[in-house]
């Protein structure tokens, strides 16, 4: 079957899958950014309980595989009385996994804000919360933004695993089409290209734009 005929027949299904992938990506990214901030700040906290919780979370999720975490959250968590539908379990797992890596980025970026900035904020007698929000975090954000670009690509790739708990994303549709037609090169090849387009022509340019905007705000252009 020529490729255009393949696309004519299955294009809409692949597109539908891509939309689900995009949804998973956005929701997982929100989860990842939130927990990364919490755990990253938590690891720098003076309170040992907060710090300990952050460290356990980070090491647990960085030390095991996303697939293990996904299966555990989807199949084992219900035994503890927490039952999630597959869609939620999907983006939550991906978000928590990438969030653990993001937490290290947050922590590293905050620590690389020059000491003088902390002291200057201290000299203005800002409250710790205000100092973090108004002085340190904006600068840390500029430092870590390029690394987040790479991490979000990892997150996009990570969402492909939710197909294994039957979320009907791009990967899932490719698998289904392959199973019913045996047109493996067309099915998987198209999916690869779509992922590539999403990563290279949507996520990366978006992050670059964000970096530029951030640099402008800090007067670095």
């Amino acid at each position, binding site marked *: 079957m020529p490729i255009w005929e393949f696309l004519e027949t299955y294009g809409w299904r692949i597109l539908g899958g891509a939309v689900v992938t995009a949804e998973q990506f956005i929701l997982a990214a929100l989860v990842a950014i939130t927990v990364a901030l919490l755990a990253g700040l938590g690891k720098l906290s003076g309170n040992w309980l907060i710090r300990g919780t952050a460290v356990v979370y980070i090491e647990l999720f960085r030390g*095991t595989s996303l697939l*293990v975490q996904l*299966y555990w959250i989807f199949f084992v968590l219900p035994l503890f009385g927490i039952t999630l539908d597959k869609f939620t379990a999907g983006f939550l797992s991906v978000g928590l996994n990438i969030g653990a890596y993001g937490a290290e980025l947050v922590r590293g970026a905050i620590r690389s804000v020059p000491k003088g900035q902390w002291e200057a904020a201290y000299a203005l007698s800002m409250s710790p919360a205000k100092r973090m929000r108004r002085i340190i975090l904006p600068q840390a954000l500029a430092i870590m933004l390029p690394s987040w670009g790479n991490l979000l690509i990892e997150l996009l790739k990570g969402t492909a695993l939710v197909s294994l708990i039957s979320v009907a994303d791009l990967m899932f549709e490719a*698998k289904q089409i392959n199973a019913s037609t045996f047109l493996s090169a067309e099915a998987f090849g198209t999916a690869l290209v779509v992922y590539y387009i999403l990563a*290279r022509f949507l996520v990366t340019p978006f992050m670059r734009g964000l970096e530029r905007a951030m640099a402008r705000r800090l007067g670095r252009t």
Partner: protein
Amino acid sequence: MRFDWIWEFTAEILPRLLAATLNTLIAAGVGYAIAVVLGLVLALAQRTPWTPLTKVVREFVEFIRSTPLVLQIFFVFYVGPQFGIRLSPWTAGMIAIGLHYSAYLSEVYRAGIEAVPRGQWESCRALNLSTRDTYLRIIIPQALPPSVAGMGNYLIGIFKDTPMLSVIGVAELMHTANAIGSEHYRFLEPYTLVGVIFLAISLPAAGFVRIFEGWVRRKLGL
């Protein structure tokens, strides 16, 4: 169902999971060996003066890095038979994971090589060293220490990505846990144990990578 950890069941399945751990380690090792060598080829190919080659390789590396490994595993496994080439799950899995990580390692090497100061290249030229000696004796030894951390992290990364091989039936840890789960209708113990085994290996490994990095640095007098 509710939470009830059964220790007898744990003891019963542990040997089977540990045996599968060996397969996981073998898969990670073989995949990594492919990635280490192929990554160097991809990195050096991008340094040749022939622009079409460097552009194609650059784009190839970008492509591999921005598409999901699990999809690449499916692709390698299923596309072969369509054209009459049958690959075993192991072969297909090793090709896919080795190729995937070679793209990442090529970036590590590239960064390492680019971090070597320009003056080192000029010294080699002034001493009339051949291109081969320049790379083998001067540049690569200096590019190595800053690469060790990245290389080590990707070794751990490849290890943590081996569960994806279960999707085409490679009998590693995840695949075995799935099998146990569906045989006994119990997922709590097998999945939790898989997590524990991964933690027990990757956490010490991360520490070991840090120690090794320091050792390489000292060894080369840097």
